[in-house]
């Protein structure tokens, strides 16, 4: 297990190294630089701009800049954000926990909906309910995140205003007593997390149904039944544990897509996470911030897939031996 983890971490580090190098490359082949990009640049004295470029080392040889970029990235420093007037690291440090909260809640919910639904469907395959659930999850899984978010917003924040429509907390949040602060956060989380969760639970249900149908005809299930184990126990203990493995792997693989979906959902619900930061970076043509969000996205994905692999190893001993 320890060797497995070490190998997995080394691979993750290599992937992040390449991702950092790629974002440096992107910044470099892009036309212009941070100081020519903003609207204000045109009205600034060229001598001042040149001074800034020297101050930030943009006039140094590219190899030197690359090595410095790597070194700074290793300690999480991506320079100043023009848009936010504070270090990129601080902007990201505020945004990343918000995105993780949103995605984590969505993932938990989607497993909570998807696995039981898919398993139930597999146990009752061919029935009308199974077919209805199958069609429903096909349709829900095809919905664009921002459209579903919008419809939920329209229904539960505008037509029936039972939930807040935007932000992670109420403007008066800091004045609330503790219990109300917790409730406030939870209420703000419901719509965005539900949007993401509905979509991915549809795919998880479809996948779970298929894997369970694949497991059910296998010999060990027949053995368990022949031993006289109760059908419910066979299904939920023996078969489900094996069928869960591919679903965990799948969830790990779908992380980049989930973050992509979170970007749109954050925009719809003004959730102050990484997606909103990335959109702000675009609006302000903020080179440093864009490099930071790209690398942070890659780090999140790599970390998430390592967690998925570890869970996979826990659920399936064969993986550890490999």
């Amino acid at each position: 297990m320890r060797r497995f983890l070490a190998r997995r971490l080394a691979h993750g580090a290599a992937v992040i190294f390449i991702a950092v190098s790629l974002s440096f490359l992107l910044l470099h082949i892009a036309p212009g630089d941070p100081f020519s990009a903003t609207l204000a640049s045109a009205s600034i004295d060229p001598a001042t701009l040149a001074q800034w470029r020297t101050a930030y080392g943009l006039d140094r040889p590219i190899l030197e800049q690359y090595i410095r970029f790597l070194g700074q990235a290793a300690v999480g420093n991506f320079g100043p954000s023009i848009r936010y007037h504070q270090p990129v690291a601080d902007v990201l440090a505020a945004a990343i926990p918000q995105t993780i909260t949103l995605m984590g809640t969505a993932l938990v919910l989607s497993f909570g909906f998807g696995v039981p639904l898919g398993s139930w469907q597999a146990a009752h395959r061919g029935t009308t309910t199974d077919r209805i659930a199958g069609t429903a999850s096909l349709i829900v899984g095809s919905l664009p995140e921002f459209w579903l978010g919008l419809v939920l917003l329209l229904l539960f924040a505008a037509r029936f205003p039972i939930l807040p429509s935007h932000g992670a907390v109420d403007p008066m949040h800091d004045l609330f007593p503790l219990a109300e602060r917790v409730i406030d956060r939870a209420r703000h989380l419901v719509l965005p997390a539900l949007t993401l969760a509905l979509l991915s639970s549809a795919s998880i249900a479809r996948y779970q149904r298929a894997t369970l149908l694949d497991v059910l005809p296998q010999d060990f299930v027949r053995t368990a039944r022949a031993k006289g184990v109760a059908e419910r126990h066979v299904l939920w203990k023996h078969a489900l544990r094996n069928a869960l493995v591919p679903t965990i792997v799948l969830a790990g693989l779908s992380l980049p897509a989930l973050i992509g979906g979170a970007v749109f959902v954050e925009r719809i619900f003004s959730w102050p996470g990484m997606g909103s930061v990335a959109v702000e970076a675009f609006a302000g043509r903020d080179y440093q911030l864009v490099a930071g969000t790209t690398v942070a996205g890659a780090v999140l994905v790599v970390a998430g897939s390592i967690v998925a692999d570890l869970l996979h190893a826990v659920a399936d001993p064969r993986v550890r031996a490999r």
Partner: protein
Amino acid sequence: MTPMSDAPFREPGDGGNPAGLSPWRAALRTLGRDRSAIAGTVVLAVLGALAVAAKHVVPYECNAQPNIVALKNIAPSLAHPFGTDEFSRDVLSRVICGSQVSLSVAFLSVMVAATLGTIYGAVAGYVGGMVDSAMMRLIDALLAIPRVLLLIAIATLWNGLGIVGLVLLLGLTGWFGVSRLVRTLVISAREDEFVTAARALGASDMRILGQHILPQVISPVLVSATLAIGNVVVVEAGLTYLGMGVRPPRASWGSVFSDGMISFPSAWWTSVFAGLALVVTVLAVNLVADGLREALNTRQLPAR
């Protein structure tokens, strides 16, 4: 979007091949028996026809703003089945006109992505060894960066991409998964006996790849490209919604959606109907892809 797929666990669907048909004929016959795939194809054909004939079928001119005071944000009615938007433009007409941009951008960029991914994956898989490892580490890293964040980064650095830029952008960021798929297929095809035979007969690498290996790769790539079209339609609309894609006043499903957000939720119809066009397209594409996957019997298709 369907980032996840239940591909490897489908029942085999080729239904035997009693008449000794060619593989493509047999696949077409299976597809012809799949009702949901037919429904998906019909929907896509209708959408495609509407897009091509957009100028002749729209009830109003797409960019016309007849009266931006009296006719703005009119709720759906007989005269305007999808209502009118903030600028008094007919939403149905704009959704129809928008399909031109949305569908062609998606189709073209997926063509770019499939071509690039096939070439890259074929080279990596066929050459093998260190070259393959290096090429695949790069793909690992590219796949680890969430595509939407990468797209936003590129849109920030290259300000003001046109339609061609958008196609290239979506194409250049869409081939990583395909290349991994093709590589896996090429590696297993490389060991086939008829490839060894061809090599023994003195066939060149180019000939082996082109004549013997690539034909085996086509059907899985076709299935994944079909799925990708549904995905890219949504990504393009999303980018346009964030202000990075198609520019106003040109209609695309994303730009109509984004126009509707100005006066959301009081005039909800603009965004909701623009999004509905996306939903119908993605659903149809997914049905066709599912059908193709069964008909072409490509069960071992990785998730992305």
